[in-house]
């Protein structure tokens, strides 16, 4: 990794320049900055900020897409908080986030540690492990998953070896969420790659020094690897939690589009989608969406706050 110190604000050699030129230079920098930013700014205003404001407005209205939105104040929110299906979707989503995110990161880290070693065929292994993430949440994944987690299929038989006999998971409201979790874990390619990138940048000298001190592999992992990759870990935790809150496709295909049975895979965005696009309750759906935004923002804030306690940034990286 390249460690760069921020350059001084003004190039040393140009100090003789008149203050007027400096101001002009600054203005030119501003202009250049905004010119370079112009696609993003256009996109932000047109496709993000504008729609956001619109949906924020909808959140306080009754809006069925056909008749103009009608202002109803906080009604959507009060209905929502009392709605048993909304509560159910929150419960399902939280369960999913809390179970899937750590397991997925654990697997990603494990495989990344495996692949970080220089071995023959490394690239091929990496590609093979990434394979599930290439497939995405397509209909065929839905079929496979439903088949694997049915009665007497491979998962059922395996769990029976361990004395667990709950039958297939797909049709069982108490277990189907774990089939969903398994799908999330299975597609661990992106965090794996990010971990690999982090591992690659741990200076070899640190390991050698630790080895000299007589540290075993476990100690080395704990004292060297983990602190060194903690920024990457933080980044992954952040990204994967946000994704987990917004999961949709996998619930949609695993449950054969209905997010059931008995609403057992009714993740938050699935309910939002049903309300908005199937029932055309755009006001309610917007209120849901904004509640999600706020929840995710809170989780992000907590994560950022917590990083002071466990994430180690190198001094130079500032």
């Amino acid at each position, binding site marked *: *990794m*390249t460690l760069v110190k921020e*350059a001084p604000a003004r190039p040393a050699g140009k100090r003789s320049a008149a203050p007027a030129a400096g101001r002009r230079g600054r203005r030119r920098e*501003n202009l*250049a*900055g*905004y010119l*370079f*930013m112009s*696609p*993003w*700014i256009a*996109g*932000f205003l*047109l*496709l993000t900020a504008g*729609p*956001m404001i*619109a*949906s924020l407005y909808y959140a306080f209205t009754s809006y069925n897409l056909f008749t103009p939105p009608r202002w109803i104040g906080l009604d959507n929110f009060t209905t929502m908080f009392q709605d048993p299906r909304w509560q159910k979707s929150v419960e399902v989503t939280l369960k999913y986030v809390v179970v899937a995110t750590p397991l997925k990161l654990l697997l990603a880290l494990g*495989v990344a540690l*495996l692949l970080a070693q220089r*071995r*023959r065929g490394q690239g091929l*292994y*990496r*590609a*093979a*492990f*990434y*394979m*599930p993430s*290439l497939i*995405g*949440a397509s*209909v*065929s994944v839905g*079929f*496979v998953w439903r*088949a*694997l987690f049915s009665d007497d*299929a491979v998962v059922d038989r395996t769990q029976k070896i361990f004395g667990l006999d709950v039958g297939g998971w797909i049709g069982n409201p108490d277990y189907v969420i774990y089939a969903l979790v398994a799908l999330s874990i*299975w597609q661990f390619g*992106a965090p794996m*790659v*990010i971990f*690999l*990138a982090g591992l*690659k940048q741990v200076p070899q000298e640190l390991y050698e020094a630790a080895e000299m001190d007589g540290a075993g592999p476990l100690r080395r992992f704990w004292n060297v690897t983990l602190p060194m990759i903690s*920024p*990457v870990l933080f980044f992954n935790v952040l990204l994967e939690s*946000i994704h987990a809150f*917004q999961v949709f496709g996998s619930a949609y295909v695993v449950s054969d589009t209905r997010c059931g049975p008995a609403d057992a895979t009714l993740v938050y*965005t699935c309910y939002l989608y049903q309300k*908005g696009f199937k029932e055309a309750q755009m006001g309610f*759906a917007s209120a849901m969406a904004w509640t999600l*935004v706020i929840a*995710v923002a809170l989780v992000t804030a907590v994560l950022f706050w917590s990083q002071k306690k466990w994430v180690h940034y*190198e001094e130079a*990286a500032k």
Partner: protein
Amino acid sequence: MTSATTSPALSAAKGRRRHGSIVWHVGALAVLAVVLYPVIWVIGASFKPSKDIIASLDLLPTAPVWENFSGLADGISGISIGSFFWNSLMYAVLAVIGVVLSSSLTAYAFAKIRFAGRNLLFTLMIGTLLLPYHVLLIPQYVLFRNLELTDTLVPLVAGKFLATEAFFVFLMVQFMRGLPRELDEAAKLDGCGHLRTYWSIVLPLSRPAIITSAIFTFINAWNDFMGPLIYLNTPEKYTVSLGLMMFRDQEGVSNYGSMIAMSLVALVPVVAFFMAFQRYLIDGMATSGLKG
């Protein structure tokens, strides 16, 4: 390590390493077998008769059939399979071009230009990472409909050309920040403007980050279902992900066989794209994650 090692010690170390290597490969293959089991199931299923696919317990077909693949040649509902692939390819390629161009421009501004309001805009950009896209879906649809741009690729790729994919901008910003500042300082002293610096120095050096963004963009666009579903009306303009749904028939007989076969064929371009560029993936991620 040290040149003074004696030969028996050396061979012992070598032996240990070879031993470790075997253990490593066995371990990796074991994990891989579990991970790839579902993929093998899909491949197996594509050779099963359509009737046997749903809830099929066997990994491999008892008597493999080709009909699922050969059936693809006839197209579906009078539309050739090639048309779906062409549409998906157009979408994915345009998306990649859009993301690479717009995100790198934006990232350059964030990383290399000191302009007023930069920090505020950067915070706003990071903030958009948190947005569930459902929030934006309907207002965006209304916008594109008013512009009479539905049933074209424009609504699908407009966001890509306007750098709305914050993750990639972020990735590139972090990468560009990691590039030695001396380089662009030197370029500035040589009288290069920002455009020149961007184009001939920063962009080429940012290749790993750009390729990483390209890979993810390609995969996402190729697998995108919701976007095409909402915006495309003419079946001849459907992408692969929509085309797959056409094998489904809630009121009659679904052709699951060809559906699986086509989804398998649809994997080929993504896998090829990934294989071709994956060696850049790690480098592209390398500098991005390390700074907060």
